[in-house]
């Protein structure tokens, strides 16, 4: 188990290093000079020179990469050029919206997908299965931002049960915060739940021919009981993989959804930074998103080992 953990940790560190290098190189190829790119056409040479100095652009690229990397390890992401505050503070503040939103959406995804997938698998070939399969096929085709607009049209403008956008802040109460995140979370969750329900259904059906399922059935368990007690645990490996990937989709998808609902999260931050050409913020937020994705993949790997002891020995 320790060797397994060590190997996974090494590969986690390597992926992070490779990702940071890729991001650095992309920003590095900015046409022209990052400082003049950020300041625009009308900047005087003195301002550009001052910014170059402040950004440390006069150092050689390898030294700059190492400085950026070292700073991030210490939690120092540099100072935003437009906001004049440390990027780390900005990001932490925005994460208070983006992270709860992604987790909320993830919970909704699982809550919708598990019953649907279980019912479809248990009633395979029947009307309930066909209904779930048809609905999920449509759900996958749904662009979440369009679905979000329809939700606003119905639940905010017609029935006025949820706010159409904006975020009051957690200070104004948990209820108000959750209400503001509900429509965005539903819009994010529904297409993902459709995918997860289909994965769960086929993973459950996949176990059907196995000996241990037949044994359980021969003992006198019903199809539903076998599914919940035996098949579900074995179907969890593909389901966990997808759920892990979906967390990163939800975090990235939130970039678009936050713009639909005017939520002050990482997504809004990154778009504002792009318009204002604040490359320091863009580079850091992208790195943090990628870090989150790689970390979740790592945790899913560990979860596999917890669910399936065979994987521990093999690694």
């Amino acid at each position, binding site marked *: 188990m320790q060797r397994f953990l060590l190997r996974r940790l090494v590969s986690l560190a390597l*992926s992070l290093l*490779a*990702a940071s290098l*890729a*991001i650095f190189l*992309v*920003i590095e*190829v*900015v*046409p022209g000079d990052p400082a003049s790119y950020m300041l625009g056409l009308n900047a005087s040479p003195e301002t550009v020179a001052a910014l170059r100095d402040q950004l440390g652009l006069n150092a050689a690229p390898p030294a700059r990469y190492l400085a950026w990397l070292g700073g991030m390890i210490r939690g120092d992401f540099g100072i935003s050029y437009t906001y004049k505050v440390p990027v780390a503070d900005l990001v932490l503040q925005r994460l208070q919206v983006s992270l709860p939103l992604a987790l909320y959406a993830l919970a909704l995804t699982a809550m919708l997908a598990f019953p649907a997938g279980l019912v479809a698998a248990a009633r395979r*070939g029947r009307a309930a299965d066909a209904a779930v399969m048809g609905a999920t*096929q*449509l759900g*996958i*085709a*749904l*662009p979440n*931002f*369009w679905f979000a*607009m*329809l939700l*606003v*049209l119905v639940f905010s*403008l017609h029935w006025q049960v949820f706010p159409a956008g904006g975020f009051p802040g957690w200070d104004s109460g948990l209820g108000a915060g959750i209400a503001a995140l509900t429509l965005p979370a539903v819009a994010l969750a529904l297409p993902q739940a459709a995918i997860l329900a289909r994965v769960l259904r086929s993973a459950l*059906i996949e176990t059907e021919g196995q000996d241990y399922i037949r044994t359980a059935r021969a003992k006198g368990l019903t199809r539903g009981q076998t599914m919940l007690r035996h098949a579900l645990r074995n179907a969890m490996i593909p389901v966990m993989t997808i759920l892990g990937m979906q967390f*990163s*989709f939800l*975090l*990235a*998808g939130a*970039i*678009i959804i936050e*713009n*639909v609902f005017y939520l002050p999260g990482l997504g809004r931050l*990154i*778009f504002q*930074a*792009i318009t204002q050409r604040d*490359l320091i913020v*863009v580079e850091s937020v*992208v790195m943090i*998103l*990628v870090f989150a*994705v*790689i970390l979740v*993949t790592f945790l899913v790997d560990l979860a596999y080992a917890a669910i399936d002891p065979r994987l521990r020995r093999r690694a």
Partner: protein
Amino acid sequence: MKASLYLGLALALAALLAAAASLIWTPHDVTALSIADKLKPPSAGHWLGTDHFGRDIASMLMAGARTSIAVALVAVGIGMGFGVPLGLLAAARHGSIVDEAVMRGNDLIFAFPSLVIAILITAVFGPSAVNAILAIGIFNIPVFARVARGGALSLWTLDFIRAAEVAGKGPARISAEHILPNIASLLIVQGTIQFSLGILAEAGLSYVGLGAQPPTPSWGRMLAEAQTMVTLAPHVAIFPGLAIVLTVFGLNLLGDGLRDRQDPRLRART
């Protein structure tokens, strides 16, 4: 199961035909502005109504189909063009450092959600349809590399490949002459799926302003423009969304139907 394959084919063909037809004919000129006719509900003159500039929505949807399909198609082309050779190479040199490098490189791209790649590219090079294609296409590369490698690996153990090796053919020739034709159907199915994902991605990117720029018509941007008018005239938001859903839905049904057809194991089961 067969009916859904044909429904998918019909929907996908309808989108293709609309896009092709828009090259020579649309009910109205998509660039003609007529403020007097703005936000009109569907009528005999304007089947799907008009937008905030009085442009005909049906015509814009036809022209928008062209953008969506072109972006998604080229992105699939990029994914196949780079991904399939990489996957074949990795399979032919299975277990070698080349294989390892290809697979780890793919893991790396997977770590960047496609939207984040797009944001990075547009932050640096500016928003345009070409950059949207690049962003979606780059993400398609590891997908096709994986499918090609997986399919090729199982073929490399078979007798007819051994026979080709004994006959003196090198790995490159075997990959091109024997492996590729046998994984073609796998690639076509994956291509259909990536095509539909590409249409969704293009819509998302142009919705946030990172895709095709005005005046190029685009479904995603139509939705972005409709957002502020959704209370006044819901039809401006509903029809572009429906166009996306129906096209993607059709392509997914087509992909699933094709997969069931080529995999007898699945066919027997359903």
